[in-house]
């Protein structure tokens, strides 16, 4: 993070050019710089904090911090990753303030010693995106994510909500790639165990199978 971006990178990236002009005094352009990422930042914050008002505060604080620290962004990571890192730190700070860390570490220990058995289902195979039109289903998914222990929720947020790579996730969280994989696996299995039976039950009355066959994995 100590070298300036190469001249080529600056010329080839409208985003780096935008940052350069903001730093040169055209401050209003910061709106344009942030706009493409605000949804992603909110999704990160709300999945971590489980509360819309807190998530909104955290995103606003993170964005203002990004503005203040803009000169320290050197273009050696993606700007989106840099913004997510700031948002993640703000969200973690808020979680710590809420004094929930102690509870979480107990949850994790317990989970680590539990032999995992997935929910045994034999006939829930359709891709259920149409189900998300229903508020009830969105609420179930949100609730299941919100009930994960903090460190698992972070992994699911970064990997499965934001769809960041394993490498980016590892570097954002400061953990190894293998830890990302292990935590992600456990988190996904916890979600599967909780959600699969619930979703199957609410989905059953209006099965939609027309997506079947259009997607490569069926």
């Amino acid at each position, binding site marked *: 993070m100590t070298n300036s971006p190469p001249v080529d990178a600056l010329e080839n990236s409208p985003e780096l050019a935008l940052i350069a002009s*903001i730093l040169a005094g055209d401050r209003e352009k*910061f709106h344009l710089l942030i706009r493409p990422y605000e*949804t992603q930042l909110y999704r990160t914050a709300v999945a971590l904090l489980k509360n819309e008002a807190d998530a909104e505060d955290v995103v606003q604080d993170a964005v203002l911090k990004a503005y203040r620290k803009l000169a320290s962004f050197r273009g050696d990571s993606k700007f989106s990753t840099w913004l997510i890192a700031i948002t993640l730190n703000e969200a973690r700070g808020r979680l710590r303030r809420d004094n929930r860390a102690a509870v979480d570490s107990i949850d994790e220990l317990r989970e680590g010693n539990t032999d995992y058995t997935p929910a045994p289902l034999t006939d829930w*195979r359709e891709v259920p995106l149409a189900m*998300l039109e229903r508020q009830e289903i969105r609420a179930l998914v949100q609730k299941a994510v919100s009930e994960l222990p903090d460190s698992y929720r972070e992994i699911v947020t970064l990997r499965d909500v934001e769809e960041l790579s394993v490498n980016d996730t590892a570097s954002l969280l400061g953990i190894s790639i293998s830890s990302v994989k292990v935590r992600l696996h456990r988190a996904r*299995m916890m*979600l599967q165990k909780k959600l*699969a039976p619930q*979703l199957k039950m609410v989905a059953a009355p209006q099965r939609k199978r027309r997506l079947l066959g259009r997607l490569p994995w069926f």
Partner: protein
Amino acid sequence: MVLNCRHVWEHISEYIDGTLDPQVRADVERHLAHCEICSAIIDATRNIIILTADDRVFELPIDFSKRLHARIDEFLQHEHPEPG
């Protein structure tokens, strides 16, 4: 290597991400070819991952963007980025 169901469950996440070692992947696939239960568990897990990634699950509150940019505006009036 012949895997039982419990072995297969350990590999579900990496199987879905396509990051399993080719030999393990082949072993998992051999198991899936005859195990309906594990196939259904993998499909359900994959479906849940797809649902979690969908934009509609964590939607922006109404006027979120408006409030964010109003706060930025206010901030820009009196703050400058710190020197690098």
